[in-house]
């Protein structure tokens, strides 16, 4: 069609009726043609699926590093003098190292093993933060569903989207190169002077820093794309407060990504300058200030904590509303709380520096930190209120949402003693902190991510997963997670510092419980992996709207067609108007509501 006159266009196509497009997953020809099609695609759905694959792969890689760390900690490292029988029958004394996983069998020093341990926890942190959790939800589920939920054909800048995928790949490759070269032992935060002095003769640290720098660009471009998409490409009839909450949270996330990520860009660039040219900005030997690096780093990395958690909160809002078939309680409060969290996130970075910054600023930051609790609590309250008298279907996504509520609340509440100056000085850099941020990042973000995957899996791939095995996996993950990390709160308060390869004997039992928990966690995730793979091949075909959702993605086919909608949708109802709208394409026979709920819907 060539006309620009919308009224004519409407008439024309209204008369022409539906023209049907094939699924976005349809093959375009031979194998290599299909590969090329995927590699050069500007379709946000394909990019979302590719991101998802990469993120999950890296998640397993980072998870393996974590398991290795936990295994090393199964026993404390001890150096013992033992008697060894020589071949000629004499007995001589020798040094033997016990409890060290990575030591060579004849090692006499713990240094080597400890260094490997340092590299492993850095690897775990860097991969999980920069390559998994930060891009995870926005780039995979966000990319896939943000435009569809807005009723758009694509994101605002599809080619930029492709570019940011390749930037992400490049960054990840830099990270992998650094790992292959032997890994980095600076911790994922790259604090100076670790990052400027260790491995001085190698470029591993520089490669890892550049990886984070490049990944930052990918994050910026994705965020920029999302902001413009939300501003410009909402379907007719969709005002700001008709947007699903997942869109709200992805939008807030995108704003943070745009505003915070450039600062880590310049920080890491200066760090590279520091390392290669010795400019001295972070080097006290030249009058620079290493704590300034912490300021620079956390100006980015604190808001990014909310880049990690906000999209997760969006997913939870969707899951809870859809699976309890009830309007979200306090929609506007939720939207404002989302924006509020994004705004406050820029004011509180100093609480990561309580032990190193000046007291005056620490006090201000401590006071500001408690502001975060308000919008967060509003959200948790609203989720619980939504559940109240809802027609709850205990599907796998819903189980994940309930786990989220439980785990995230623990994670959030344990943040309070860490935000209090006096208690933080006791708990700083202890296992309490480790447990706290794992409850938020993993109990929050990863749990919501996996929940979201289950929620949207039928839509993304047009296949149902096995509900029973989904639930088994969820329960295993929940148990494994709590076994691994709850005990670490206790370890932390008793004085176990983070990032140590060994510990006093009193902590042995608690460390062993934690390690066992991490194995259960692995089993849980493997169950999910096989369940997903199984569903791709043998899963029953998914209906367009298996859960009875009201947002626009449930109006499309499963999987959606190339352009998402055959015709541009006009939004006539809010995203959660369950009390007055019958969900489209919904057959309650597929997934029946709990008894008594049907009456409310018909």
């Amino acid at each position, binding site marked *: 069609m060539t006309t620009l006159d919308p009224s004519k266009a409407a008439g024309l196509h209204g008369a022409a009726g539906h023209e049907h497009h094939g699924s976005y997953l349809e093959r375009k020809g031979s194998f290599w043609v299909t590969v090329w099609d995927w590699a050069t695609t500007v379709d946000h759905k394909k990019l979302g699926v590719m991101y998802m694959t990469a993120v999950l792969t890296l998640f397993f890689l980072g998870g393996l590093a974590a398991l290795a760390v936990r295994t090393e900690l199964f026993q404390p490292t001890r150096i013992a003098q033992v008697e060894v029988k020589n071949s000629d029958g004499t007995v001589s004394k020798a040094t033997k190292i016990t409890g060290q996983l990575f030591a060579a069998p004849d090692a006499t020093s713990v240094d080597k093993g400890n260094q490997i341990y340092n590299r492993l926890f850095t690897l775990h942190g860097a991969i999980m933060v920069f390559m998994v959790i930060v891009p995870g939800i926005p780039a995979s589920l966000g990319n896939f569903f943000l435009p569809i939920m807005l009723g758009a054909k694509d994101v605002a800048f*599809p080619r930029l989207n492709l570019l940011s995928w390749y930037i992400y790949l490049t960054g990840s490759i830099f990270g992998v190169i650094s790992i292959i070269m032997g890994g980095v032992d600076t911790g994922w935060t790259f604090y100076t002077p670790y990052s400027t002095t260790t491995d001085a003769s190698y470029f591993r640290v520089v490669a890892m820093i550049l990886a984070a720098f490049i990944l930052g660009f990918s994050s910026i471009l994705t965020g920029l794309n999302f902001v413009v998409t939300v501003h410009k490409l909402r379907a007719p009839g969709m005002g700001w407060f008709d947007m699903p909450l997942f869109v709200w949270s992805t939008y807030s996330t995108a704003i943070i990504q745009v505003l915070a990520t450039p600062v880590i860009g310049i920080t890491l660039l200066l760090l590279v300058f520091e390392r290669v040219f010795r*400019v*001295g900005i972070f080097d006290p030997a030249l009058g620079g200030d290493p704590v300034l690096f912490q300021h620079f780093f956390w100006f980015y990395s604190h808001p990014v904590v909310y880049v990690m958690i906000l999209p997760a909160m969006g997913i939870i809002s969707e899951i809870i509303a859809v699976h309890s078939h009830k309007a979200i309680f306090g929609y506007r409060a939720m939207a404002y709380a989302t924006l509020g969290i994004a705004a406050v996130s820029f004011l509180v970075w100093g609480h990561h520096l309580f032990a190193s910054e000046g007291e005056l600023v620490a006090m201000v930051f401590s006071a500001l930190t408690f502001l975060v609790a308000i919008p967060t609590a509003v959200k948790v309250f609203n989720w619980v209120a939504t559940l109240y008298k809802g027609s709850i279907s205990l599907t796998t996504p819903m189980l994940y949402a309930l786990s989220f509520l439980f785990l995230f609340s623990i994670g959030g509440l344990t943040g309070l003693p860490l935000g209090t100056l006096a208690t933080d000085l006791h708990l700083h850099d202890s296992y309490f902190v480790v447990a706290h941020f794992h409850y938020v990042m993993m109990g929050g973000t990863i749990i919501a991510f996996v929940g979201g995957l289950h929620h949207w899996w039928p839509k993304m791939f047009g296949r149902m997963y096995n509900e029973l095995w989904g639930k088994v996996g969820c329960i295993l993950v929940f148990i494994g997670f709590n076994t691994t990390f709850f005990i670490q709160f206790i370890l932390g308060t008793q004085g176990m510092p983070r990032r140590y390869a060994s510990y006093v004997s009193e902590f042995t039992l608690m460390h062993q419980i934690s390690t066992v928990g991490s194995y259960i966690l692995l089993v849980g995730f493997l169950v999910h992996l096989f369940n997903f793979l199984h569903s791709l091949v043998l899963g029953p075909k998914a209906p367009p709207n298996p859960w009875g959702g009201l947002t626009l993605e449930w109006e499309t086919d499963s999987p959606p067609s190339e352009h998402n909608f055959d015709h541009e949708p006009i939004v006539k109802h809010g995203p959660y108007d369950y009390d007055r709208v019958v969900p489209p394409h919904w057959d309650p026979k597929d997934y029946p509501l709990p008894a008594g709920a049907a009456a409310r819907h018909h």
Partner: protein
Amino acid sequence: MTTLDVRQHGQPYDAPPSGPLWSRYKHAHHYRSAEEEFDAVKLGMWLFLATEVLLFAGLFCAYAVFRMLYPQAFYNGSHYLDWKWGGFNTVILLISSYTMAMSIRNCQRGEFRRMRLNLAFTIFCGALFVLIKLVFEYTPKWSGYFFVLDPALHHYADSGKTALFGLFHYVDGYGGKRPGMWFNYAFASDPYEPLWWGVYYSATSIHALHVLIGMTLIGRVLLRSFKGHYGPSHYTAVEISGLYWHLVDLIWIFLFPLLYLIH
């Protein structure tokens, strides 16, 4: 579900080839109108500029913190710089910003020859800026070699050592104003001067990099303008390249007084 199809599938350009490219441009398929696309692209560019401002914020922050801690070193530092070169470069960038703005105006009015002239002049100004920075500012301070035409050269005793066929003259003791560990300028009076050079080189080199990126963007626009991509009804790329260029100017407007004038 009520449906309404105002978004079109397919190519952003009209099918029958008639008229110059810009007049046939409609919009990318996922927008409703060219107006909407223009607005969206501009919004995206402003967001990108926001990231650039925050990128430089790191450098400004480093400057501010160390100026506060070591005022004497920064005071000395700004006196090593020649405000005349800095001022000249400021004027160059301001003029180039003007020609860039003019080229957008020309494009909107369909004055294509003038547009190309203005674009080319803008690129020329950018190149001049980087050249002056490199030849007259970085090189002598770093190595002690002055370009033969440098007016500052006759203030100093020429050591007789030259390089590059006599184009560069060496002044003994002048060079070595380098950042951090490479600092070996023998006449510094403040112990923190290497730090000043660290900030100076980081800020100006990253800015110069942005000048180069801006030149590349404008160069691309210039090349495509020969093929008739831009005209009164479609000049998005000209506009956003212009925005980028103005931002580079904007940053320099702040860097110039901070580095050269404040004492």
